[in-house]
């Protein structure tokens, strides 16, 4: 997969994750509550699982994204040094 597609896909996942947990509970709390009420399980369990999953996704995606960007930056620096 091309680097730009990887970065775009991971950034979209991170943005969606953070938007869901940062934007909806503060700006649209009714919508946020409705989502959890629509699900068949108890609200507390749903929220616990959602928050933990959200944190884990944000953590993994941001780590992988940083790693990819730093590696590609290093490669381009090395290529620049070789060309000189």
């Amino acid at each position, binding site marked *: 997969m091309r680097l730009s597609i990887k970065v775009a896909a991971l950034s979209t996942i991170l943005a969606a994750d*953070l938007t869901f*947990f*940062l934007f909806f*509970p503060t700006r649209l709390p009714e919508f946020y509550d409705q989502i959890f009420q629509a699900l068949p399980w108890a609200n*507390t*369990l749903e*929220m*616990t699982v959602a*928050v*933990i999953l*959200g*944190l*884990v996704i*944000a*953590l993994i995606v*941001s*780590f992988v994204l*940083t*790693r990819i960007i*730093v*590696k590609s*930056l*290093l490669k381009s620096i090395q290529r620049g040094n070789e060309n000189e």
Partner: protein
Amino acid sequence: MAKPPSKPAEAPKPAEATSKKAYHEKVSKESKESLMGALPSITVGVIAAILLWLFGNLIFIPIAEGIEWFGYPLPQILTFIILIALAVFVLKILVDVRKAIDALAGLAAVEIGAPADVTPTEVEHYTTAMRGLFYIIIVSLAFLLFSDYLARIHPALSGVILVAIVVWAIFEIWRAVTAISSEIKRYSTEWAGKALK
């Protein structure tokens, strides 16, 4: 019995000079390679740890307030998960920093210390001093990341760890000063020897 006349100071033999030059080049090359390998890894670790701290502190812990899971408050469960992840990142950073410091110490011994006349003891002294100083800086920064989360688990936990860090930092500073003072002693002995000739 008469003592044999003492020999005048000899110039370094060609083989000795070649081996010193080879050691100088080896240390210089290995240090540069090691530094180039460790820096990107440290950058990734630091950025990931800061992002984790930001996500945890600003997003996930505030929305977890008031939620309980089987009687346990969710913010404390999240705090525990974040602490473990932070500990993993900090350990990874420390391993990479150790490599980078060894490389920096090698470079310091080669470039600053005594060009083309580097001994393994000199490199070791620089390594001890730099390790000590950098470890103190990194552990202090890591404590700033951890302190909020530790205080959330138990208010006294943060204080106990801070006291342990202060005691350890004093020991590390003492080690660094001892290593540097032995280098200063060696240099001053050499200079005194030259001045008295």
